[in-house]
């Protein structure tokens, strides 16, 4: 038997030579490696891209084109407001949906397919695997929002130019100052910096939802369970601000109630706090401090839910 084995080994001598070629060893194991996280992140992005999740952008484009054709019959202020409302609202819904649906399947699918065994059998700490997976989703969300924003701003610019030309034509006989004032009013009602603040907050909200979905998926057994739980959290998150105000108004603000409400707010983030679409649409300025506080709150939730996911996943039997 032994002789037969050696004879077989001889038959694969070419293979043997290739396998035995010793190369320089990689660096010593590091407890934290951005390179490993980047590899998992890039792989997640490849996975989601090849699953053709960007197809939903076509739907966004259709809504935008359809909306802009429909809006041509309104005054320019109404037209710009409705266009911003539809576009920012769609961006918020699409990015939230994308965050939940794509994140929900990542961990349960890897466990079901056993791909997670091959990854964690390498010197990869579990928290790096989770950060890499989440990172891929966050990059996908950023790319999607950039694409949607570009489409939205392009349509808004085209409508603005059309209205400017039309106004200039209609007021060709008016005095220069009057014409300039009219054109300036059109420009101001189309573009302002608040648009970018609003889009940034939509991204922060989507990141928060992705991190929360990751946390839920670490103890869920199926993607469907995660999506259903997240649908509940999404609605509770949008309603809890109103419920909190009502509660405090009815029952006063003793410390017990405040503690309870703080706990509820931690488990179910107040998603209404991340909704600046109305302010952006009507052109109300978003104070810098409010913007920074909202971004900070979003970042806090992302870190909190990722840390909780890491704790749950570190003890999970695979």
């Amino acid at each position, binding site marked *: *038997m032994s002789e*037969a*084995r*050696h004879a*077989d*080994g001889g*038959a*694969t001598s070419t*293979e*043997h030579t*290739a*396998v*035995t*070629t*010793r*190369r*320089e*060893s*990689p*660096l010593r*194991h590091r*407890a934290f*490696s951005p*390179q*490993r996280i*980047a*590899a*998992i992140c890039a*792989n997640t992005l*490849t*996975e989601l891209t*090849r*699953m053709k999740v960007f197809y939903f952008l076509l739907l966004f484009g259709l809504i935008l084109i359809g909306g802009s054709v429909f809006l041509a019959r309104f005054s320019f202020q109404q037209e710009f407001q409705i266009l911003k409302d539809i576009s920012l609202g769609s961006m918020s819904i699409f990015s939230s949906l994308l965050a939940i649906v794509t994140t929900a399947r990542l961990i349960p699918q890897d466990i079901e*397919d*056993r*791909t997670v*065994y*091959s*990854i*964690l*059998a*390498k*010197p*990869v*700490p579990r928290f790096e695997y989770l950060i890499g997976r989440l990172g891929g989703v966050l990059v996908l969300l950023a790319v999607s929002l950039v694409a949607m924003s570009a489409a939205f701003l392009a349509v808004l610019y085209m409508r603005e130019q059309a209205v400017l030309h039309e106004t200039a034509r209609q007021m060709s006989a008016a005095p220069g100052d009057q014409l300039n004032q009219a054109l300036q009013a059109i420009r101001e009602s189309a573009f302002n910096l608040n648009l970018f603040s609003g889009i940034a907050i939509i991204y922060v909200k989507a990141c928060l939802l992705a991190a929360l979905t990751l946390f839920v998926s670490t103890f869920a057994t199926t993607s469907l369970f995660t999506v259903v739980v997240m649908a509940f959290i999404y609605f509770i998150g949008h309603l809890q601000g109103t419920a909190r105000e009502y509660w405090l108004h009815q029952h006063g603000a003793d410390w017990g109630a405040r503690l309870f409400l703080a706990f509820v707010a931690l488990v179910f983030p107040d998603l209404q706090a991340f909704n600046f679409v109305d302010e952006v649409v009507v052109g109300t300025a978003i104070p810098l401090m409010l913007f920074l506080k909202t971004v900070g709150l979003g970042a806090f939730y992302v870190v909190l839910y990722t840390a909780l996911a890491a704790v749950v996943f570190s*003890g999970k*039997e*695979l």
Partner: protein
Amino acid sequence: MTNAAVSVRSLTKVYPLPFRRRSVRAVQDLNLDVQPGQVYGLLGPNGSGKSTTLKIILGLVTPTCGQTAILGRDSRETASREAVGFLPENPYFYKYLTATETLRFFGKLSGFHGVHLRQRADDLLDVVGLTDARNRRLSTYSKGMLQRIGLAQALIHDPKVLILDEPTAGVDPVGSREICDLIGSLRARGITILLSSHLLAQAQEICDRVAILAEGVLICEGPLAELISMPNQTELVLENASDELLGKIENMIAQGGGRLVARRNPATTLEQLFLECVRSKKRPR
């Protein structure tokens, strides 16, 4: 623990069944040592605790009690997996990746990058015979091809210890033979191999030492040659022996106090016959 490449001490794993107020004892008080350079077979029927033991060694499952180590490092440390490659049972990799992308992904996880990684991936694709299929997505791969790419990813970081869970499960005899040959060549270069299998003929061919588990308990363990040898019997294989010579030998055996147990013409194995038939008709890959 010891100088063993893989050591298992007093290992027990109990899976609770919460709604039934019962528990399943997957592994019970298991002790093993796999010495460097050995091909060690963990044998047993389905549900005997082989895969659970391998998962605990790899840190994928936490033991209820006991300890496991790879090259002296506790399995619970992530760094212990630096020197180990793992091929899971029925491996299922990201099907949207090509073979090259898969190897580069796993190489990056192991700390490789750049030209070195590309070269290493190319070498391993050659070793497992997938060079021609390198740019095909894994969704188009057969089971045998997936097993081979699984073996390549297990080897991507040049590990000292290789853990293979049912490495030939579901693979046709030709693919199975190639994997056995590869295991032989890896052993020749000093890689320690711990494998689980319930294909006993293959285990007998490639293992130096085996442990047999049943219901999570170690039943039998030792060097394969010793375990299966029959010390009171001797086998002679003669070529071109005439009937006259055979008669003389039988007489000598009787006169010497021995007993002829069987006289037959040796036969080739069914596997050997199959391989010869298939290889003579083999299409280019």
